[in-house]
């Protein structure tokens, strides 16, 4: 009886002190987690662990009276069997322009992706990925064209307004 009373007293004392303890050497000594919270918002450790920043859906929306400029750089290669350097430049520029259009379409409208893997006897026989983009682009501006060592780069930009998406 005497020992049991001492045990109960010890347990209750340790229970009261458990809230005040900061260091728990056996549990979290080897792990380091740094979470930055605004002052006053992370009162308990459990809350601070769950309050990770998730970007809200409204971050990239285009509000009224606002505009968004999308700028891309398309690349095209000059063919080797051309009659003159000028022809090579012109053909590379066409290819680079098409690439720039594709990049704009990918950014504005998105890409359709379709993947297929053929696995036989636990080995990948064929892996194929198909992507496709289809869009209609108006008012694209060709900003700058550079041609160096057979590679043509075209900088293209498009300005999007809120009214462009209204139907």
């Amino acid at each position, binding site marked *: 009886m005497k020992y049991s009373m001492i045990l109960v007293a010890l347990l209750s004392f340790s229970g009261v002190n458990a809230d005040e303890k900061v260091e728990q050497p056996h549990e979290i000594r080897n792990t380091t987690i740094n979470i930055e919270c605004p002052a006053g918002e992370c009162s308990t450790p459990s809350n601070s662990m769950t309050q990770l920043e998730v970007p809200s859906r409204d971050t990239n929306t285009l509000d009224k009276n606002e505009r968004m400029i999308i700028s891309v750089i398309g690349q*095209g*290669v000059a063919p080797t069997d051309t009659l003159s350097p000028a022809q090579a430049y012109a053909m590379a520029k*066409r290819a680079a322009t098409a690439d720039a*259009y*594709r990049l704009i379409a990918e950014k504005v409208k998105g890409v359709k992706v379709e993947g297929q893997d053929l696995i036989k006897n636990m080995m990948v026989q064929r892996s194929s990925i198909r*992507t*496709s983009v*289809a869009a209609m682009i108006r008012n694209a501006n*060709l900003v700058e064209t550079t041609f160096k060592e057979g590679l043509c780069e075209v900088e293209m930009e498009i300005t999007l307004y809120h009214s462009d998406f209204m139907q």
Partner: protein
Amino acid sequence: MRSGDGNYTLSLRLYAIIFFLCSLALNAGEYYISYRYITKNALLYNESLQISKSMQKCDGNPTQSIVFETVKENDDLKTIIDKNFDQFSNFVSKVGLEIKHYEKTTNYINNSTTILTLKTTCFKVDFNDSFVKIQALK
């Protein structure tokens, strides 16, 4: 009260203005233009520019326009566009191009095809002494 000489100069001015306006628009017409080019693996594969004179009046209002200088008076529209193709290409991108892009990666080897198309669009073309004005109709 006007004098006889004053009226003479006035009528001369009017005739001059009418003559000037007529000479500005020597020949105007409407043309259907379509343009398409294909690139495969970042290389130009095929390009086609089709121009046809409209046989009936097009509907729509003029929107974007471009002016080309002409060296010879007898140049047709296709020749003028060929001579100023860079400017025309920029103009067409303002009017609107449809893009279709397909890409296939098989066993880490990539093949891509991009098709840019200007759908058949009616353009109003004004031929003048030293320049041509092209306007897209929508």
